[in-house]
């Protein structure tokens, strides 16, 4: 059922030339994907896809669209080469699927090797109920460190391309979507719960779905909302753009710092057991610290990218 909708959206995305509609469809696609992930027991992924894929990506694409054009030009001749490449690739994928273990098969290698160790050992070695968090932040914590650096890199790249965004030229009170008398009180009441929820997600990741990534996004979205409703400049007064990239750097350094600390304590890089005499307590502390680093970097990069896009005026 969900997959059927996804297919329809994909076809529509190919055919439509109104890019605004295409981007909105992309948002719906991400949201449906998130629902599909829920269905497949991937709660953390669903949460992230909804926040990052449907939320951040769509907002970014809309701000990108604002600075370019809404309508795609009528396509010229369509060369046959792309269709052939796609056909060959698709055939290779279907070929691959013929020997793939069927969906949900408990004898599939994925469920036989490595995974059982995580499921059995997480409560003993890491001591957090959410196995995804344990694997993410500890067993494969180095991947997540790399991921934090990827976000930092993206923030840096946008900064290099578009600059800090706005700066002094913004009058407080001038906003992107016009004067919204109805929206303002709604936003005003919404923001405190959003920020609170962000904090909850940040620190509750050990137990349920959530963690630094989702929290950073939610926190940033609170500011974005404020910015949209109350005008550029107001949110910038609370968190100046110039500070954001320093904050992003700080987040990476917090994560890396935990690793380097372990290194000087005579353990491997990112070995959290160096943080405490009791290894499980060390894991707890380590996960908490690195998630804070992740949260700070994600928050500041998402917000700074939003500033960079919204601070730019269309030239043509």
């Amino acid at each position: 059922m969900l997959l059927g909708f996804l297919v329809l959206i994909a076809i529509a995305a190919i055919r439509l030339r109104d890019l605004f509609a295409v981007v909105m469809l992309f948002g719906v696609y991400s949201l449906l994907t998130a629902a599909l992930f829920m269905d497949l027991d991937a709660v953390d992924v669903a949460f992230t896809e909804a926040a990052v894929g449907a939320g951040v990506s769509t907002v970014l694409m809309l701000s990108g669209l604002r600075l370019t054009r809404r309508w795609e030009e009528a396509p010229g001749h369509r060369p046959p080469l792309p269709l052939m490449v796609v056909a060959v690739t698709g055939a290779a994928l279907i070929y691959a699927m013929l020997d793939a273990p069927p969906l949900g098969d408990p004898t599939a290698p994925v469920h036989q090797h490595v995974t059982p160790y995580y499921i059995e050992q997480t409560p003993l070695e890491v001591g957090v109920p959410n196995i995804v968090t344990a694997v993410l932040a500890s067993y494969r914590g180095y991947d997540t460190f790399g991921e934090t650096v990827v976000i930092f890199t993206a923030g840096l790249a946008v900064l290099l391309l578009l600059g800090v965004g706005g700066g002094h030229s913004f009058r407080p009170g001038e906003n992107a979507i016009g004067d919204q008398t109805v929206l303002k009180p709604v936003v005003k009441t919404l923001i405190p719960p959003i920020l609170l929820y962000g904090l909850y997600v940040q620190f509750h990741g050990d137990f349920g779905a959530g963690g630094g990534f989702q929290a950073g996004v939610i926190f940033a979205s609170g500011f974005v909302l404020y910015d949209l409703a109350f005008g550029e400049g107001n949110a910038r007064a609370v968190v100046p753009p110039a500070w954001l990239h320093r904050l992003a750097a700080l987040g990476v350094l917090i994560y890396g710092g935990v690793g380097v600390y372990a290194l000087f304590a005579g353990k491997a890089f990112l070995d959290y057991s160096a943080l405490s005499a009791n290894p499980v307590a060390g894991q707890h502390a380590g996960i908490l610290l690195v998630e804070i680093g992740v949260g700070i970097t994600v928050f500041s990069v998402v917000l700074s990218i939003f500033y960079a896009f919204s601070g730019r005026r269309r030239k043509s």
Partner: protein
Amino acid sequence: MTLIDHLPVLVVILPLLTAPLCVLLDRPVAAWGAALGAAWLTFVGAALLVGQVADGGAISYQLGGWAPPWGIEYRVDTLGAYVLLIVSAMAALVLLSARESVEREIFRVNGARFYAAFLLAFAGLMGIVATGDAFNVFVFLEISSLSTYALISMGRDRRALTAAFQYLVMGTIGATFILIGIGFLYMMTGTLNMLDLAERLPEVSNTRTVRAGFAFLTVGIGLKLAMFPLHLWMPNAYTYAPSVVTAFLAATATKVAVYVLLRFILGIFGIEFGLGRMPLEYLLIPLGLMGILSASMVAIYQVEIKRLLAYSSVAQIGYIVLGVGLANTHGITAAVLHLFNHALMKGALFIALGAVAYRIGATTLDAFSGLGRRMPLTMGAIVIGGLSLIGVPGTVGFVSKWYLVLAALERGLWPIALLVLVGSVMAVVYVWKVVERAYFSQASSGSGEASEAPLMMLIPLWTLVLANIYFGLHTDLSAGLARQAATVLSGGQGERHAFAYLDSPGSAAGAAGGAGLCQAAQSA
């Protein structure tokens, strides 16, 4: 554990963590100093690592203290240590020459951020080489890619933007293909650790899923590698990127992609699977040859020298791909050797171009008029680099081509040996074009005041030029190591990956078939 035991991870996190520091420092000069310091320390670390691996064999480092396959492992073997060494050496040398060039070419943005992005690209490449985990490759690939897109877009010409965008699209397709490939391998084995994969793959190597995974990995890495015909992003990217960026990328990025290709084909799948059961051999040999010939041909007609050298790089990658495709010890030795040698050549040539751009302001053929008199040291370096590119005896370029020809003859594929020589002749043509203009043509009026490049550019430039000659004369050192690395890659991780396949009677038939196919490809 002392600090020396942490070398595998230190060579990655040192540049990685210096990048945010550069952002915090905010002053271009301070950031340059920090970046340079980090790069040289990393280089020293990589040199120590080479010594460690030579003494005690491959090093495994368990990140987070978790044993593989549950945790992520860093694994540095002989070849890996050398690739780390060359990447860090190039970063250190290029950064040495960077300050003046960056001040001249990159003025719209804060230089500190530029150095931060440079360090991220550098650290990403180091991470790809050091890791022993298939998914970790993807993560560090994206660190280096994203920062590279930004670095390329910093070029002055507006086409730098479109070049970066094109690279972003093709690079992301490549990365997604790699992701699909890793997914298929994971689906059939349940593991992501490379050694563990190598152990578990033979059991399921007959499945279609694993075969398709192999294909997706090869195409994905081929895109990153700019393997013909997937090279379309590269000439623009190299031409319009700032000189410093081009010099670093040309000397390192594609080399790391070659290393990843070798590691997956030989280290994980094993040569028997990659070249025996999959038709890779019949794909790599013709593609390598077509890359050499067509890209050399295009290079001959270029008037922008950066673009000329970019097409020459596509051709040089063709030699490497050909070496892998020939799949005997000499062939892989040639591929590994050329990986290093090409880094030395193109590093020198692109730093020299950076110096020309710094003094003259352009790198078109016209800019080279009479340059032999005005910038004798820079032009001298270009001549020697060019000779190395051609493969003249006494330079490193000769050594790798020698092994390539040996490999072809050993397989009885003499037409391939001949075509390698044809490629060299074409290199003579495009190198001569530049040399002729520099030495036998009058300087255009009004630009007579240009003088020799600054010392900070000449030092790294001539270091690389001398390395081109030194390793061209002392072949036992580099060739010995490459051969050792080739054997380790293909046989060191257990007997099942040994070259048994090549020595078996079946291989003669395979070789004959390959020759037939290649001849058919040539006549077509």
